[in-house]
């Protein structure tokens, strides 16, 4: 195929641009749209309809212009991949072929429907996807990917068509099901609260706008949620929570396949949007496994892989982490063996000092209870009614603190450093010493006599911290790690 002449994407790709732009507009305006929906009856129907039609036409024109103005080609002379795009602001993106690190072919739901593929081009240096061709045929995508990666001498392996090799690990539907119903309780709960919160707020502002007595509405709600129905409500809430989680997990990770490509791992997954990602063992910085009690009983866990991103922000790093849900222990070991060339074992354990537990108890149990007591004795706030919750709080927080303390360990062997932490979901973060970029030890002055202190290990994929351990032991370990980093022939990437 000839890529030297500027060419456009597939014509049906207009549909992709259309839905993308439309989605963006709706996402930006959704609170207004919800209010309009409530007020639909009062609005001038003709105006609404013409408005919607106008919006459609506008988006369609934008989509068409996006399609018209988007051309891409390879400049052989300068060894560059060049994209021209933009409706109002014209942009020209030029990427040196040898700087291209990764080319992945993805498919969103819309793209799947109309049979086109997106091509993402990653370069060294920036963390953002630098160039995206959004709608090309599969054949063209494959050919372009091959052509783009020719510039990278070290990685001929990437050009092999992946679909012919057999998957190395396949995550079955039942594994996804197990993970789906047992993970992320906290996050889905927060999502649910946020969701109901916004709805409640919107309804209220609508009511206010329509001069319905807000107080009446509140008391109505209070009555509706009498004691017995609260239980039912919570049960329903939990049910929705489980279903939501399950649905999200399955849609996101459906048909999860891991294929081996020489030394790299190629992941592809997704029900509506198919995603492809490549993991290169030499780029991997932190591997973490996470599972809770239920998942342990069902022999399933979630693997997270953090690659060198060149990104300082820990949160950004978390977002970029590659997740492999629903691995069994055997599958985890196979992936570990491939990434590390051996299976990490826990070695000597470092235990946090008991003060860590005590500080937690003082901060989260003692101080709040003292404040509550003071408020109870010196103010007229109606605290007495809520005092039944106090033992509940003590037990719950106490358990959280205790398990958090008990699970916190730092395991060290010659080849691996493993940090275990978590209360319910227990996470093991695994790094190899030669991936360390910098080490920071820290000691509060009143911990000097007790000989306890903290350590943070920085890698290009995030940090690992361990607090209030035996400081002499930590210092000894730091010396070993420095020795390992400074004499190793292995690079961190």
């Amino acid at each position, binding site marked *: 195929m000839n890529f030297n002449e500027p060419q456009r994407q597939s014509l049906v790709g207009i549909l992709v641009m259309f839905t993308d732009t439309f989605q963006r507009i709706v996402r930006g305006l959704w609170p207004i749209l919800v209010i309009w929906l409530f007020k639909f009856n009062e609005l001038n129907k003709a105006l609404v309809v013409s408005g919607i039609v106008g919006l459609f036409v506008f988006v369609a024109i934008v989509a068409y212009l996006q399609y018209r103005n988007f051309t891409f080609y390879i400049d052989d002379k300068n060894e560059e991949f060049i994209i021209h795009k933009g409706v109002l602001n014209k942009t020209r993106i030029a990427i040196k072929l040898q700087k291209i690190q990764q080319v992945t072919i993805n498919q969103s739901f819309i793209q799947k429907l109309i049979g086109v593929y997106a091509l993402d081009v990653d370069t060294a240096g920036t963390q953002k996807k630098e160039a995206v061709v959004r709608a090309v045929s599969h054949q063209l995508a494959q050919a372009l990917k091959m052509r783009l990666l020719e510039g990278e001498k070290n990685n001929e392996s990437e050009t092999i068509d992946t679909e012919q090799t057999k998957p190395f690990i396949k995550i079955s539907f039942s594994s996804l099901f197990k993970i789906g119903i047992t993970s992320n309780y906290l996050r889905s709960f927060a999502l649910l609260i946020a969701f109901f919160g916004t709805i409640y707020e919107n309804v209220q502002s609508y009511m206010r706008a329509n001069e319905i007595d807000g107080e009446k509405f509140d008391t109505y709600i209070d009555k509706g949620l009498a004691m017995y129905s609260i239980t039912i409500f919570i049960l329903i809430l939990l049910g929705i929570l489980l279903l939501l989680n399950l649905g999200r997990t399955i849609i996101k990770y459906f048909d999860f396949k891991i294929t081996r490509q020489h030394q790299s791992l190629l992941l592809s997954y997704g029900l509506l949007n198919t995603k492809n990602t490549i993991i290169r063992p030499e780029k991997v910085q932190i591997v973490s496994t996470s599972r809770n009690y239920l998942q342990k009983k069902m022999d399933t866990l979630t693997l997270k892989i953090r690659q060198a991103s060149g990104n300082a922000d820990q949160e950004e790093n978390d977002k970029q982490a590659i997740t492999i849900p629903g691995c069994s222990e055997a599958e985890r070991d196979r992936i570990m063996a491939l990434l590390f060339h051996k299976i990490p074992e826990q070695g000597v354990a470092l235990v946090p000092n008991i003060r860590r537990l005590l500080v937690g108890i003082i901060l989260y149990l003692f101080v709040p209870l003292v404040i509550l007591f003071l408020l109870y004795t010196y103010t007229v706030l109606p605290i007495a009614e809520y005092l039944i919750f106090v033992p509940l709080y003590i037990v719950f927080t106490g358990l959280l603190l205790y398990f958090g303390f008990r699970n916190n360990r730092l395991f060290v062997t010659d080849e691996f450093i493993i940090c275990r932490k978590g209360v319910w979901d227990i996470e093991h973060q695994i790094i190899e010493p030669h991936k360390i970029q910098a080490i920071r030890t820290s000691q509060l002055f009143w911990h000097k006599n007790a000989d306890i202190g903290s350590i943070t290990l920085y890698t290009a994929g995030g940090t690992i911290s361990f607090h209030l351990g035996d400081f002499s032991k930590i210092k000894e370990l730091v010396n070993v790690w*420095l020795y390992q*980093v400074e004499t190793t022939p292995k690079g961190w990437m």
Partner: protein
Amino acid sequence: MEHYKNRSEQIPIFETIEIDTDRNTATMESFTNTSIDTRQLPRFEAVDFEPLQADYKKVIFFNTAVFALILIGILGAFLLINPDMVFGTVLLIGVLAIVIVIIMTLVIALVSFRKKGFAFRQHDVLFKSGVIATTITVIPYNRVQHVALHEGPVSRKLDLATIEIFTAGGSGSDIRIAGLRREQADRIKQLIMVKLIEEIPSIASENNEVPPVKLTDDEL
């Protein structure tokens, strides 16, 4: 192991450093794999830290003075808008608050200045800081991404400079040493440069991939 020493370095003049190109082959031949006696390793905690230049205190005084002027300016503006309060308690409280804030800032800055120290060893650079918690950051030379040298307007007058050493481990792991003699900073930069060249072949031979090393020289 016997070959691994990590003594503090005299920060040398560039010309005197000899790059030991045979280093890799030498270590290959003497490669052993016996278990490490961790107590025999060089101890990072036993390093003598070099303090910052005393002149840097002047920079601290200057910065505090600027900060004080800003606070006084705010108070003055407030009094201009409310002229009837000029002789009231507001003025007294304001002045008192400014004095306390300035003294606190100055004391903390001076203590933190005294607590700071750096050390260059054969294979890594160490930086110590912190008033309440003593923090020591260690960056091995073979993990350094780039080095930058800064000179602020005040520092330049005092012949001071700042060295920043970056790794791929994110902003939390970077070392920033302010209050160095300009000439000293230059030599440190050269030292790290030489160390980089010295350390990198061992990586490159294994991986065919030389990590990008940039040396920037800002504000020169």
